[in-house]
Every structure is written in structure tokens, then in C-alpha cells.
């Protein structure tokens, strides 16, 4: 890694309702690569991901110490501007949550919030992002239709397009394919591989096959600690830690 990492985590500790969820996490997320966070259920994968864009703030009884630097700026600094930080990251959640408005308005939502784009600019932007997610041909004739009328797979791609429309640097995916059928899953996975040209991507997944297919790097988290971090093939095929070995073989799950 030559340039400064988009996301750099330093001694991050997260407590939720007096439970120590994340323990002393320090890691640099590689730029313009796909990094997968793997680990058994309840190990803190999603909490780690959500700490990157401060979505943890809405969790009751949460206590966070340590630093998360995004482009060198500590996002937990009391003076940090939260909307600015979140704008840098697109989030793709477990299930698609289209906003209660039309397909067009879903994609235009972010840009409208951050400025007053002209109609022509918006039209172009919506088209670009819908093309980027391979949705354009499927929806171009019904842009004004409610987003909820789309299939689940299409909705998830719409959510991705919506995230890309605010021109983020980073894409966060929280088990983004877990509600999708195999075909849609495949489309989303291919999109991730395509998008890493321009974005740094962090995915939480519990499907090792997916982690192997999509990602360049893997972070293995267990009981709130990072056990191993390295290039995909190395972690999956030749793990250094005993715990990783067991997890990869399927002993812990």
C-alpha cells in the first residue's frame, strides 16, 4: 500500500450494553480492493462494518473508544461532520431497503440532499448509475414506478445505484446477498468485482465461497478480535492461525 488508506482503524473498542463487542481493533483497509470480513455469527463483523460510517451511533447504550480514520480524518472526533463522512461511503445492507418513492427518486435522493442539481444533470446521473448496476435496461421505461415494485434482486441493485450516486470512495456491504437468489447474488458479486476499479470495497460475509470469489483480502474476526488479515488465497488456503484454520475447515461456525 503506497497511498494513505481510505479507512484506517486504530485501537477501536466498542461496548454495547456493557458487552465488549469489538476488542482493540487496528487495521488498514486496502484501497481499491475488495476486502471481506469473515467470522462466525455474533463475532462483531457487522459492528465493525457499521463503525466505519458511524451507523453505530443509533444503537442504544453504545460506547466507542479509539480512532477510525477516513482519509486521515478521525470520524469519532466530536467535531467531525457526520453527513460528510457518510457521503463518502455507500452502504448495501442485508436486505434491500428501497426508500418509499419512485425508482428515479431513489437514485436522485442523495444528490438532491447534497445540492441542487439541475434536472438534466440528475437525469444523466440516474442513467449512469442505473447502467453501472446493470439495471437501466430493465427499468428505463418505468422510472416513475415505486421502487418497491421491483424484484428483491433488482431492489438490491437499485440500492447500490443509490449509494453510488453520492460519489462515494468506499462501498460497505453487510451480507448484501443473503436475501437474494443465486442469479441475483451472482450479478451483485460480479458488480463488486467490476466496481473495485473505482472504489474500495469492504464486505461482511459468512459465505466463504463468496469471500474467495470476490475478495482480494480477508479479515477473520473471532470473538471481537481480528485473528488474521491477509490476501484471500493465503488466509483461506494457508491460514497461519489455528483458529482461522478451524473456521475455514468448518469447525467453528
Amino acid at each position: 500500500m503506497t497511498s494513505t488508506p481510505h479507512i484506517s482503524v486504530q485501537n477501536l473498542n466498542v461496548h454495547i450494553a456493557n458487552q465488549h463487542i469489538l476488542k482493540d481493533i487496528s487495521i488498514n483497509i486496502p484501497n481499491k480492493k475488495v476486502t471481506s470480513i469473515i467470522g462466525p455469527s455474533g463475532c462483531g463483523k457487522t459492528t465493525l462494518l457499521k463503525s466505519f460510517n458511524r451507523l453505530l451511533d443509533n444503537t442504544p447504550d453504545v460506547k466507542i473508544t479509539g480512532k477510525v480514520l477516513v482519509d486521515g480524518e478521525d470520524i469519532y472526533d466530536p467535531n467531525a461532520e457526520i453527513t460528510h463522512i457518510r457521503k463518502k461511503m455507500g452502504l448495501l445492507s442485508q436486505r434491500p431497503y428501497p426508500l418509499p418513492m419512485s425508482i428515479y427518486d431513489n437514485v436522485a435522493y442523495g444528490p438532491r440532499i447534497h445540492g441542487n442539481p439541475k434536472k438534466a444533470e440528475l437525469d444523466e446521473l440516474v442513467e449512469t448509475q442505473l447502467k453501472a448496476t446493470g439495471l437501466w435496461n430493465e427499468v428505463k421505461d418505468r422510472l416513475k414506478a415505486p421502487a418497491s415494485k421491483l424484484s428483491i434482486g433488482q431492489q438490491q441493485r437499485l440500492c447500490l445505484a443509490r449509494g453510488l450516486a453520492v460519489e462515494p470512495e468506499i462501498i460497505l456491504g453487510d451480507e448484501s446477498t443473503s436475501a437474494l437468489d443465486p442469479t441475483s447474488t451472482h450479478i451483485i458479486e460480479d458488480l463488486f468485482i467490476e466496481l473495485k476499479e473505482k472504489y474500495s470495497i469492504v464486505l461482511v460475509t459468512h459465505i466463504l465461497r463468496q469471500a474467495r470469489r470476490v475478495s482480494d483480502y480477508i479479515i477473520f474476526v473471532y470473538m471481537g478480535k481480528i485473528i488474521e488479515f491477509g490476501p484471500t488465497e493465503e488466509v483461506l488456503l494457508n491460514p497461519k492461525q489455528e483458529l482461522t484454520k478451524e473456521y475455514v475447515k468448518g469447525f467453528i461456525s
Partner: protein
Amino acid sequence: MQLRLIKDKIISKLMLVFTLASVSLVIIIGVGLYYRSLPVLNNSSWGQLLSSSVWKPMKGLFGFYPFIMGTLWVTAISIIIALPLCLLTSFYLSEYAHTRVKRILIPFVNLLSGIPPVIFGVWGVLFIVPLVQNHIAPHFVEYSTGYSVLAGGLVLAVMIFPLIVSIVNEVLNTIPQELKDASLALGATKWETIKKVTIRKALPGIVAATVLAISRAFGETIAVLMVCGNNAIVPHSVFDTGYPLPALIANNYGEMMSIPLYDSALMFAALLLFIIILLFNVISRIILNRLERNLAG
């Protein structure tokens, strides 16, 4: 085997009968009221009864226009005052308030709905009426006793407040955090998220809560009766007295029944109230269906 199936059938039929019985009550009440209103309807036409402002029972003149307007004024004022307050309260409770604050405040709001209307009436007479008379009205009109449609609306607003807040709060709690997160993750602020996502999603629920509150406001009798002044005059400003339909019925039924047609006229007042609420519910149901279709998902 057979016996179990027969039992099942009997019970389901029995439940159907009970359901039909309670539903048909609505129709029976409507027909009954219409039947009892017939004498006054034979005396003068629907048009006359609804549009005339002259209320002189001794001369057999029954004009319901002032009462209809009284009802509408009081109800409209209460909703206009209560709705914005209720929405802000609900949004505060569900989106901003700390869990501990919520745990204390929500029972208080619910407690408000448990207070008997007559107590609100007394409170209205002792507090709201002087407030209107001495502190609000002087800024706008030369003289007001305080007994006015505004006082009625204010008292009603307080009464429907807990109803709207508790329903809207429930509705807001059903909106998934992930949906709000989706908006926040795009860099929207909390308030932008509420304005553009949460309200849209909750709109059918908010409308339903408002409809319920309005229906309640239409029918509320005693508290309104105590503060409205009860003059059969069409109100022209919020500081005028008003005489809503329920108050008319409650004040006069059982008294002055020796006046010919009076009993029938009061029944007609009840019929009117019944029709207003029925119409209102049907219309709001149509609006609600349309909203739900447009915003599905």
C-alpha cells in the same frame, strides 16, 4: 372425528352471528334515528333543516346550520392545533428521545387519555376560558367572554393529543431502522431522513390516527359543552360562541319535550352527527386506500 368437525362448524357459525349482530347495530341505529326524525322531516325539508339558521322551537322552526357549523369549527380548530404538536411529539419520542426519557414520558401521555372528559371540561372552564378571555381574545377582538369555539377546540386538542401521539408513535416504531440507516448512510441528516423517508412511510398511519382523532372530536360532548357557550348562532370567528350537535342533544334531551317536534328535531341532530361521522369515515377510508396503494412497500 365427525363430532370435532361439527363443533368447529357450529362455533364458526356462532361467531358469524355475533359479528353480524354487532355490525347490524350500526344499521339499526341509523334506521332508528331516521324513523324518529320523520316528524320533523315531514314538517320541513332536508334543505330547510340543513341551511336555515333560525332555531325557534316554540314556533316550530328548526335550523341546524349553526349546530353543524359549530361542530365543524370546534373539530377543525382542535385538529389544527393538535396535529402539528402531536407529530412533533411523536417524532421526538420515537427518533430523538433517550430510552429513559421515553419510559417516563409515554405513560404520562397515555395517562392523559384516561382522564374523564368532564374533568377536561372543568379544567376548560377554570383555565382555558379565562385564558381566552383575558390573554388571547384581547389581542384580536374587542370583547369575548372566553366561552368560544376556540376554547372548545383547545380543550378538545388536549383530549385527542394522547390518542394521536400513541398511534403515530406505534406506527413510527414499526418503520425499520435499516430504512432510516439507508437514508443516513447517504449523508442525510436525521431531520432530512424524518422529512423525506419516515413521514412518507408513516403517512397512512398518520392519516389513520388523524381520522380516529377527528371522529372522536366530532362526538365529544361534555367537555365541549362546558366551554363553548352554547348559542345557536353560526360562529364567524374563533372567539364566537358555538353550539356543536352533541352539546345540543345532551343539553336538551329529556327537557322541554312538551314542545311539539322538539324530540324529533333532537333525533334529527343525532342522525346528522351519525351521517357526518359515517361520511367522514368512508371518505378517509378511500383516501387511505389510495395512499397505501401509492406508497406500497
